[in-house]
């Protein structure tokens, strides 16, 4: 099994002009990339902006991607550079002094809350997603739960999981798939049409 074959097949499609394949890559890596960028910026909304910029830069640079490294490694470097540049340009930009800040702390705080999804208002849906997924995982049979956790949390390959669980690789593949299906069945009720993107993509 060649590592990164799935990403590479999507990348090749994008290079041939299939923008839909790039969409799949974004869906796969958006959370990882935002998490990565949040090492540099604390505001999740700003991290999302930087991640978006990194994805667009990656798309424009994709004709030069030869596949010498894994796609995510390449994307990772772009995101790190984009985040560093964003931090530098932000530090260079003049500080906006709000003379009325002391007199309007409440409105300032409200503005921050609206931008920050870590606030209760911003995290309602995210928390709902988390609790739904966690509940679905808890409800899984032991062998399915172990397989999906070893894969997603520990990052083990199917072969390594097969060794750890003392079963064939095909069984591992089946267990992980069934675990995902069980969780996805609960998730679909929340997302209603795929990550709420149906209206945006319209």
């Amino acid at each position: 099994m060649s590592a990164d074959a799935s990403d590479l097949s999507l990348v090749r499609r994008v290079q041939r002009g299939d923008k839909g394949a790039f969409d799949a890559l974004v869906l796969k890596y958006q959370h990882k990339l935002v998490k990565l960028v949040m090492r540099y910026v604390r505001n999740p909304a700003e991290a999302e902006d930087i991640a978006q910029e990194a994805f667009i830069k990656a798309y424009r640079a994709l004709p030069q991607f030869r596949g010498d490294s894994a796609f995510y490694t390449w994307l990772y470097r772009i995101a790190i550079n984009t985040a560093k540049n964003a931090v530098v340009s932000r530090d260079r930009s003049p500080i906006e002094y709000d003379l009325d800040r002391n007199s309007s702390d409440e409105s300032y705080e409200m503005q921050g809350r609206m931008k920050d999804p870590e606030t209760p208002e911003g995290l309602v849906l995210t928390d709902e997603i988390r609790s739904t997924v966690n509940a679905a995982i808890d409800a899984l049979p032991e062998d399915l739960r172990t397989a999906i956790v070893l894969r997603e949390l520990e990052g083990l390959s199917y072969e390594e999981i097969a060794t750890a669980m003392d079963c064939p690789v095909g069984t591992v593949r089946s267990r992980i798939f069934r675990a995902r299906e069980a969780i996805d069945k609960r998730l679909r009720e929340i997302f209603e049409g795929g990550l709420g993107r149906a209206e945006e993509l319209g």
Partner: protein
Amino acid sequence: MNEELDSQLSAMFDDELPPQECELLARRLSRDEALKARWGRYAVVGAVIRAERGVRLNAPLAGRVNAAISAEPTLGAVAASRSALPTPVRWWQPLAGAAVAAGVAAASVLWLRAQAPAVLPLTAQHAASAVAAPLLKASAGLNDASYVTPRMPAVRPMLVPSTQLANYVVAHSMVSSPVAGRNLLSAFISSESPPTPVEDVRVNVAGDAK
């Protein structure tokens, strides 16, 4: 939804699907919105298991990127248009190659000319000494009835054959016509490969080595 297809999608998400199957599924994934949505939810499941705190799992990031990419030119079309563009600069490429070759040739000539003052005197000196030495020795040999065979250059130390044969050839060359003698000597030198270099071999006219 086909269960086998979903199973393949799960394996592809984990980079555990054979490349040939990846190619086929990637094609379908890029077009099938339902499949793509499932793919996106698989990513959400992974993010929750990894407890990626602070990341909005419902963020409209993918939609925003998709909208931005829609405004971008298609990569395949860009590559094709670039390759289809006329290349007006190509006409000068052969000329550039010729110019480079001419430059190298000119540099070589200049370098040789720069080296010439150092080489020519030495060559001339060597040639003069090579011609003059036998004549001088020959003239000296008129007195002592002997001469010294010229010292062979260090770069070809094996040119002088064994002493007796050398004496014979040299003696023969003295009585033969100059052209025949030179030819014989040349032929001999070229055919011989003596084991050791001989420094000075004093030969008398009668052919006795001293």
